[in-house]
């Protein structure tokens, strides 16, 4: 360790007192610094290695399929596990449709809940609402799926359909939207609210015309990140959204494919190479979709006004 030998010899410091000596490093401090740096880099590597490994494996094993244009145009209709070919457009469509509908339901509820908590909520009721959001954040996805199953399928006697998948994903997405929107609304300076009040603008109008537009891009970021999170969910889809190999866009009846259920389906039949390849390709497609949403979310965050 050069850092240690660089330190001044002790006897010289004692025999020749100087006014101010800034040369050299303190040996033990330099050592601690090196150790801490090494530990941090090691922790970083441990965190990143599995991530890179997964991405590489998925890209290598599924990459050739998604580079084929039929992957993006064809469904799996008429294709068996032993046959190559077909695409994932049915699953991509299903995932996007269900994600969109989930967002359409959760965003108004989540944003308005956050507006209530930040702008109106005082006292006991607001604390209860906030606590409920915390609980909802911790609900495992399979519990959300089973809850919707218990209410709509077991109790009301509906058959399984895409819309129930959306409802269960909504349960998972609402708390994410509430929390991220809440943070963004808190960042809007109070002075802007006061400026609007002082112009004789009513409170609700201040919130909709000044506070929400100011926080808009931040809210969009939160929504996209929340959406990215629920689009990769699998458990509620296995419970509520039976798979089909054909293109199906009806949320209210019949089976509907999604990328996670496609992965699961092919895994069931993965004794053969074509199905095995399709698992990796579907996984890669899902990762790319979610990556895209994340990037869009970050991009929206750049235009933030707060």
């Amino acid at each position, binding site marked *: 360790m050069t850092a240690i030998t660089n330190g001044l010899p002790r006897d010289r410091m004692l025999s020749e007192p100087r006014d101010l000596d800034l040369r050299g490093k303190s040996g033990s401090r330099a050592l601690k610094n090196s150790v801490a740096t090494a530990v941090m880099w090691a922790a970083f590597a441990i965190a990143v290695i599995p991530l890179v490994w997964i991405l590489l494996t998925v890209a290598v094993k599924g990459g050739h399929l998604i580079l084929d244009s039929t992957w993006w145009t064809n469904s799996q209709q008429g294709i068996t596990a032993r046959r190559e070919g077909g695409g994932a457009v049915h699953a991509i469509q299903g995932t996007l449709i269900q994600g969109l509908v989930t967002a359409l339901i959760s965003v108004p509820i989540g944003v308005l809940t956050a507006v209530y908590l930040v702008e109106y909520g005082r006292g006991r009721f607001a604390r209860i609402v906030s606590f409920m959001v915390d609980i909802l954040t911790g609900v495992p996805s399979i519990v959300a799926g089973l809850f919707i199953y218990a209410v709509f399928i077991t109790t009301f006697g509906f058959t399984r359909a895409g819309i129930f998948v959306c409802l269960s994903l909504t349960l998972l997405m609402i708390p994410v939207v509430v929390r991220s929107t809440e943070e963004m609304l808190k960042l809007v300076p109070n*002075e802007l609210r*006061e400026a609007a009040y002082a*112009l004789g603008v009513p409170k609700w109008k201040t919130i909709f*015309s000044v506070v929400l537009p100011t926080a808009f891009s931040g809210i969009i970021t939160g929504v996209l990140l929340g959406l990215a999170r629920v689009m990769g969910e699998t458990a509620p889809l296995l419970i509520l959204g039976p798979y089909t190999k054909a293109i199906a866009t009806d949320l209210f009846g019949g089976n509907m494919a999604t990328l996670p259920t496609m992965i699961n389906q092919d895994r069931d039949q993965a004794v053969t190479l074509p199905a095995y390849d399709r698992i990796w390709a579907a996984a890669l497609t899902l990762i790319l979709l979610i990556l895209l949403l994340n990037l869009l979310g970050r991009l929206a965050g750049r235009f933030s006004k707060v």
Partner: protein
Amino acid sequence: MAKRIDVSDLDIFYGSFKAVEGVSMSIEPRAVTAFIGPSGCGKSTVLRTLNRMHEVIPGGRVEGKVLLDGQDLYAKDVDPVGVRRTVGMVFQRPNPFPTMTIRDNVAAGLKLNGVKNKARLDEVVEKSLKGANLWNEVKDRLDKPGAGLSGGQQQRLCIARAIAVEPQVLLMDEPCSALDPISTLAIEDLINELKERYTIVIVTHNMQQAARVSDQTAFFNLKATGQPGKLVELDSTSKIFNNPTEKATEDYISGRFG
């Protein structure tokens, strides 16, 4: 158009804490009234009760009367939103709306209250910006964001925004404390012009500024931290600065305070 304000026996609270006690005063129309006093004496708090902005703060409440041309602002059937349309306010830090253009910032008060007529809005924008001595600097970039202006320009933009809704009274809470001397001069000139049409109340920490711009001056003080602030005296500015009645005022003005 400009109205007088009569305050009588005003107590102001934050929750259970009494911040200001027993304020009674008359604020003359078409004149500038300055509030001076040490930090924490409640001058901004009193200012904010004049357009019911005090109650925006959780726990903020008021006892006593504030009469605007004889009408009690705190009467039961009075709508605070209506009060704020009549009594405008300019804040310490310039606070243009960051999502809006210069034009929209000025028109915000009208637009958010439902005025849609574009010709009318354009007319008001021009009139208000001219009134705030900002028109010549921004007339070529009305559609640029208001946040892109300099601090002094932003503050004049906020003044334009406040006068665009044609209030009767204009409250200013340390409007120059975040500005450089040149911008401060521009605002002070503007205050001199505005007082022909509006009743103006200005809170300031700068005694020279109070002496320069105001016609009457109110001195607020508090005995000790934790005690409520009080109005010590209100008189014509020349009297307050040359020959105040109270010793506390003289001590504060002459810098012998505390």
